């Protein structure tokens, strides 16, 4: 993006009717690692690619529980995300204290949208540089909401945001019709399949896939490493083999299959180094 004379303040319009600061905030979302959200008739699932650092042992927390019935995954500035998460948790807690019931998720994200909008209209504040996928289950069923720094709140059947998320979105669009009737396991596998497309080849040794789920009679929970590994294996078995085009993307680094073999902590056995063509061959010999 190039600098121009209309992008110094949030409160400056460009002659084309654009707010550049808000659009630049959207760019911050695209810098974050990808995350995918999708729902069936009974469950809503969040999958996130978390960056680990070789020096420290802690995972970047991309999935944040908000309340028993709602959680979110983020892409963008984690500091901004923590503020937003804190706001949502406070709102949910206050609602439970006053009304002895869970905050309807549509209203929660509507309030969040209003809060974000205020930051796009003041000269002394900047938009939050974080995009969120809010997943929840309430009386009206499962929900996936996409919230962006522009304060747009979208009700989605499935959505992916973050770096290289277009391939994830394409997968979701292609398989959208099946999600409604999926079981919990199938839904998670679809999500993992979707996010595989967003694995680049440069950072892939540092990325782990984390899963969280909420649904009917199932409070929001993030899976442990062991459970993540189970679903990764399941997705690999159920998933379609990579097309030739996608193999080309992973040339020069680990292929997706090898990365999945390594497991979430990245310390599993390395792949056998066989060529991609061999791994995906349908002929016997393995």
């Amino acid at each position, binding site marked *: 993006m190039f600098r121009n004379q209309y992008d110094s303040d949030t409160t400056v319009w460009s002659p084309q009717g654009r707010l550049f600061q808000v659009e630049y905030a959207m760019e911050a979302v695209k810098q974050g690692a990808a995350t995918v959200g999708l729902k069936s008739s009974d469950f809503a699932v969040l999958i996130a690619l978390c960056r680990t650092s070789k020096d420290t042992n802690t995972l970047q927390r991309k999935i944040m529980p908000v309340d028993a019935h709602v959680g979110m995954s983020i892409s963008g500035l984690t500091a901004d995300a923590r503020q937003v998460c804190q706001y949502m948790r406070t709102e949910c807690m206050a609602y439970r*204290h*006053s*009304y*002895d*019931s869970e905050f*309807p998720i*549509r*209203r929660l994200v*509507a*309030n969040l949208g*209003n*809060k974000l909008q*205020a*930051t796009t209209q*003041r000269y002394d*504040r900047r938009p939050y540089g974080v995009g969120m996928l809010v997943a929840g289950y309430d*009386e*009206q069923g499962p929900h996936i909401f996409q919230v962006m720094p522009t304060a747009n709140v979208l009700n989605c059947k499935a959505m992916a945001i973050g770096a290289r998320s277009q391939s994830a979105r394409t997968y979701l669009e292609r398989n959208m019709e099946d999600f409604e009737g999926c079981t919990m396991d199938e839904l998670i596998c679809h999500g993992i399949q979707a996010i595989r497309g967003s694995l680049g080849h440069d950072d892939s040794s540092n990325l782990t896939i984390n899963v969280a789920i909420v649904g009917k009679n199932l409070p929001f929970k993030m899976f442990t490493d062991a459970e993540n590994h189970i679903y990764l294996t399941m997705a690999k078995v159920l998933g379609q083999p990579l097309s030739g085009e996608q193999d080309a993307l992973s040339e020069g680094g680990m292929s997706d299959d090898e990365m999945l073999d390594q497991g979430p902590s990245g310390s599993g056995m390395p792949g056998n180094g066989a060529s991609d063509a061999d791994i995906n061959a349908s002929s016997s010999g393995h």
Partner: protein
Amino acid sequence: MYNNYNCLAQPLWQNGPVPGEFYNFTGGQTHIQKLPRELTTAGPYGTKHSTAAITTGSSVLGIRYDGGVMLAADTLVSYGSLARYQNIERVFKINKNILLGGSGDFADIQSIKRSIDQKMIEDQCCDDNIEMKPKSLASWMTRVLYNRRSRMNPLYIDVVVGGVDTEGTPYLANVDLRGRSHEDYVIATGFARHLAIPLVREKKPKDRDFTAVEASELIRTCMEVLYYRDTRNISQYTVGVCSANGCGVEGPFQVNENWTFAETIKGY
């Protein structure tokens, strides 16, 4: 209250002039107008927040049956011992799931009902078909009333909240001026607590809920007893019914008065 619009709006200026008020331009000592001591002292010769009710509604009775709830209250608001307003509805339909029966200071009932109506309008403005449930309203009322009592300025009310939740399960609870709340199959305030509750408990089948017919029969009997024995009741009353099929206030009904037994009383 503003539906979260502009919740981050800051005042246009701070520490500056306020329209209509005296602005301390020099910043020096101001001669602050003090209210006379009679109006600020608490105690027998001054003012204090009133804990006495002025215009009062008498009892409210609520009974839970298998399909919903019924709330009954007479239509009298008394001014001390004077039967001042004789045609006042004290059972209100709040939304399609909730009924509210109010007793105690009637001005306070009207005040809290106004707040509740505002909440219902906010719900409608959200336009998402989510209506408040009776349990949530009762919980909210306990928070408000407890806050008022802790500030030594109570809303002097004793209400019955009844209704059905989304699955059609009936809910019946009492919320009082201290912020106390409890749920039961029969809830009563005022004199009905002493006269009606034992009657209803006696008739309650051990293993099941009341049927609608049993419940309305009990209401009729209890309102009759209350009219005969509570000196702050009249013979006209309304009944609110809330079930999965709908919610509304019916009436006014009349108690079947029969004072011929009075002649059997010695000294009559």
